[in-house]
């Protein structure tokens, strides 16, 4: 297939034929969107090609990036710091000119049942923009702060502000965040949340060039 395959892959937005080494499970939301589109009677009812109705945002590409960051030393524990982790997302797959229209961070925890902090205590969650080496940008307010009385198996946060909707400039091919979780209130107790943390992923909807430049024919 050689050159034909290469040119076809490029028109599909791929630099080379992917060969997944450690394929992650497909997030249920992507299966839902995929199956919904497949079962639509074609072609009259086809959804608007440059919109993701499930999120009600413009876009024709939905990607899920797996976190590649590491746990960070607690440093100066403020309150009862249970967990400090660099969340690092390699965005190099984005093509120049793609414009993010939605970014959702998902944090997944081990416990299938609800697992709260100790009674009378509150779990606090903060998210900072960081350098790829995992250093929070000094003086910057947290991107996100939440107090949780109960920890759920999956927490989803809207992060579109972190990518501020403009086209991803060439070379800006990663997003680094520092996640801190601490417990405050009541008598001390083991921080259940730190060992409960399982994984994080970033769902990104983007508007590709072909959508932004109208319907270019190849």
């Amino acid at each position: 297939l050689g050159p034909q395959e290469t040119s076809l892959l490029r028109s599909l937005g791929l630099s080379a034929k992917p060969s997944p080494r450690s394929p992650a499970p497909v997030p249920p939301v992507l299966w839902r969107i995929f199956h919904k589109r497949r079962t639509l009677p074609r072609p009259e009812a086809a959804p608007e090609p440059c919109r993701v109705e499930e999120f009600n945002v413009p876009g024709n590409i939905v990607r899920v990036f797996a976190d590649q960051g590491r746990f960070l030393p607690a440093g100066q524990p403020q309150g009862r710091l249970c967990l400090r982790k660099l969340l690092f997302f390699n965005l190099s797959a984005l093509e120049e000119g793609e414009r993010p229209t939605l970014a959702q961070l998902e944090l997944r925890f081990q416990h299938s049942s609800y697992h709260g902090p100790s009674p009378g205590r509150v779990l606090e969650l903060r998210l900072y923009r960081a350098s790829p080496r995992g250093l929070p940008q000094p003086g910057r307010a947290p991107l996100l702060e939440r107090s949780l009385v109960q920890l759920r198996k999956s927490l989803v946060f809207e992060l579109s502000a972190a990518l501020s909707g403009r086209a991803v400039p060439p070379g800006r091919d990663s997003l680094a965040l520092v996640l801190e979780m601490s417990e405050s209130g009541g008598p001390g107790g083991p921080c259940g949340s730190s060992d409960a943390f399982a994984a994080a992923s970033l769902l990104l909807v983007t508007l590709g060039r072909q959508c932004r430049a109208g319907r270019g024919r190849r």
Partner: protein
Amino acid sequence: SAPSPAGTPSPLCKPRRLYISFSDVGWENWIIAPQGYLANYCGGECPFPLAAELNSTNHAVLQTMVHSLDPQGTPQPCCVPVRLSPISILYYDNSDNVVLRHYEDMVVDECGC
């Protein structure tokens, strides 16, 4: 894989069945879904006089007329897609991210001259 034509297929321009199986082209290890899809293609002739159902342009009508006067010098018009549909593909990209992407013009719905 285009099926062997049952009976004598119409010689006129129209969509012909073509199922593309991604495993046939060696893409099954990175395309999660679908495993293949009905892409179809346009096949058949655009003879003079162009019948009404052949979805033809004015230019094609004139070209068939000239072709009937001068078959060696002017070819018949081509049979090409005039309406296509998109499909969505779920796949792993070069960084093992899971991607759901919407691709335009992937299925031939209608052909014309």
